[in-house]
């Protein structure tokens, strides 16, 4: 399913651990963004990253820096701090997606289904975002019981996310 040429950007929250995985991802798509996870051997990944794709601003962070791990409000703080519409974090190895305050917080889960100390029964999963103008459709691919299950979530960006002064 992951065929080279179909995907334009890869956003990776971290913990790739070894360079070979990065190389593999590079074969899928040359535009690769990675932030540093706690087990990464590559020390030059940044802690957080922001990028703009289409009309959306995306923020990337591994998530082990944000405590409590996986807590929505803390992540929302990070989102405001980075000033992004979509925040992608990981570390919990569990897929979640929240709409929050005019933005989206996505946790794609673990692509390999690696062991996590905070999650039972990790299913390998990843997320495909289809950004089209002011609309993003999030497809979630999960491997459950040997089968690929796909789910879809629609987000529309409000054109002016006006935050009142206080």
């Amino acid at each position, binding site marked *: *399913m*992951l*065929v080279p040429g*179909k*995907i334009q950007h890869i956003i990776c929250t971290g913990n790739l651990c070894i360079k070979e995985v990065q190389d593999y991802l590079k074969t899928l798509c040359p535009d690769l963004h990675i932030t540093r996870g706690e087990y990464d051997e590559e020390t030059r990944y940044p802690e957080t990253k922001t990028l703009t794709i289409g009309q959306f601003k995306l923020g990337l962070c591994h998530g082990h820096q944000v405590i409590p791990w996986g807590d929505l409000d803390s992540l929302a703080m990070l989102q405001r701090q980075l000033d992004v519409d979509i925040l992608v974090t990981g570390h919990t190895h569990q897929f979640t997606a929240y709409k929050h305050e005019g933005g989206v917080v996505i946790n794609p889960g673990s692509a390999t289904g690696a062991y996590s100390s905070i999650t039972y029964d990790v299913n390998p999963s990843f997320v*495909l975002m*289809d950004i*089209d103008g002011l*609309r993003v*459709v999030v*497809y979630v*691919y999960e491997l459950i019981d040997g089968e*690929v*299950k*796909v*789910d*879809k979530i629609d987000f529309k960006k409000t054109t002016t996310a006006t935050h009142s002064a206080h």
Partner: protein
Amino acid sequence: MSRGIVEEEAPSLTRVFSPENRSLGALRSVQWRVNLGILPPSPSVNDLRRETADSRRRYAGLRRRLLVDPHVPKDGGSNSPDLVMDNPLSQNPDSTWGRFFRNAELEKMVDQDLSRLYPEHGSYFQALGCQGMLRRILLLWCLRHPECGYRQGMHELLAPLLYVLHVDCERLSDVRKIHKDHFIDKFDGLSFEENDVAYNFDFKKFLDSMEDEVGSQGNSKKVRSLDELDPEIQTIKLLTDAYGAEGELGIVLSEKFMEHDAYCMFEALMSGARGSVAMADFFAPFPAAESHSGLPPVIEASTALYHLLSIVDSSLHSHLVELGVEPQYFALRWLRVLFGREFSLHDLLVVWDEILTADNSKLGKVSGNEEISGFKILDSHRGALIVAMAVSMILYVRSSLLATENATTCLQRLLNFPENINLKKLIAKAKSLQVLALDSKISSSLSTFDVAYSRSKSAVSGRNLSSGPVSPNTPLSVVADSYWEEKWRVLHKAEELRQDDSLDKLAPSGKRRWSEKVRLVLSRTESDPSPARAGKYKKGHRSSVRRSLLEDLSQQLGLEEDTEAGDCFDTSNIEDRHSVEGQVEGQNDTSIASICTAEERCESGSGASVSEESSSIFSDPASSGSISNDHENDTEKSSVASNLSSDDNDDRHQSDLEDSPLPVSSPPEDALLSYPDENESSGKTVSASKESRHLSGRFQWLLKFGWNNVSQEASDKGVSNETAKSANRDSKSSTADSSTAAGASRYSSPTSQRDVVDQNVMGSLKNLGQSMLEHIQVLESVFQQDRVQVGSLDNLSKTNIVGKGQVTAMTALKELRKISNLLSEM
């Protein structure tokens, strides 16, 4: 009442749609849609509207089906799509995403072409809306025809169609503005825009319109009744009435549905609408299923093009074939885009008017038992007109094509068609050629011709490849374009199609070289040419030089093939010319005999037959030419010189003319000395070579027909064998073979074929007659000149010969005149 108006309209509509009245400013898009078969050629407005509506519905349905946007939730989520199959990464071919990506790839290809479409009319064609429409139309067509896919050039076919629709819509809006009253219902001062389906009553507008009403009272009172309007305006009104048949969908000229209409037109054009010419075929790389020639259709059509060209103008054809200019090099673009890249947009529209008017239905060929039915493209009027148009274009740039010996230059000329052209003339010529192309004999002679052509093609290409060191491309010297054009114009004063380039001064260097070579060559000639012959180095005389260069040219062609074959060929060619002339002019044996005798006498009674003499002369320059092979010029010049010497033997016209003004006494060397003094001679000689080439081409072609006839009633079996062979093969080689064997016998049977020849080639013979008339005039004028100078000759023997030659020449001239009159009468 409305019905009454409609019925009244019927005649006016037929007027509008008749081809003769197209200049009525009739709506091109409607006319073209009728021609392409989308709209019925019926005068009833309602029929038109209904057909329009149906075609648009079809397109809309197609668009909905094929243009997939998986982003848009289709049914409001009632049936949630199976996401496992239908996700973007799915490799399932049925998934909408899969289709979406495939479409996206097609679109990318299309966009590459669209971005470069008509940059000179970029304000229309590069606008986003227009590009979007074009993209969608092309995409949908390609999705509908996956076997064709998208090929570069399809966008060029589509663009004029859309443009025509756009122009008509603009016309409509102009007309609307002028005749507001008839297009807008005005009740109580409120105007209900016809086009405005979702009419929103706007009070503000109401008040404004009240004021306008007051102001425009004067204008609106003028034309009240529909009938008072121009019939064209009436047509427009009826076609675009929102309340007519099919309502808004039936408005024949509608900006809303431009995309639909353009798609329908494009589809009809590409598929040929059950006719013979389908543009889509031209994009197919593989031969059609029922193709007889086994060639891809565009190659076959290019072959048809060359075939027609060879019939109309075989010298140009052979010139192009020699250079190795295969027709598809330029015809591919011409045919695939229907000349879209050769003319400016507005000229193109005129051309397409003509082409689309031509009927596309298959002509039933009376093929009978023969299975091979000829070129597919010539199977309809439209196809024939397309081929004729192409040939007419080639003929338009004839002079510059003949002027160059370089295949690249030829192609450049053909691919960069001149800007300011006389389009009417071009089209008129094309129409005349179309008739020719449709001639059943020609189109169904594919079987024999094609085989011959492909063989000759391969022979030519083989020749070109193999005879590298002999430099097949440039047997003649490379001279400036204007130089050759001058020669050409000299030969064809009557033809108006030729471009008028001013003649630059003739290349003096060429002449110098030439004189040297002449000296070199002639010193080698063993047999001493008779004084008369030597004296015939008439330089200032055009026609003699012309004739000589006819030989010269044939010499060139002969040399091209084979050095030894060239000898035979040259001799045979000269003989051929005789026999051909004999045939054409319907000379009796006696007249030919008189010619022979005249020549013999000219040669101071030398017992040698004409052919032998000429052959000996030729063999020498041929050998010398082959010796000095490093310079093409050498061969040319030497052969020219030798031609000059031997040529006079053959041409009865020249027998008297040449010698007189020349102060040459006896040996050719003397003639040589005087040669360099004449500046014009070299030029005229070269000019004559052009004509000679042309003439030889014509003669060869005539010869071919003559041979065909000869084969029919061959008295001599050997002759018949030879000629039958020649009829089936390339004329050059055939003449080489056959003529050597059957030299003398030909003379015996020239006359009987005259009638048969005439029947076959009347038109061309007429041209031939005209050119002969020209020659006669020239000859006579020179003859008058010569008579004065006869006395100044030193050589006594020469004067004797000259006197005799004059007499014979006079008789010959008279006969020639008679013949040309006969021909022109035909």
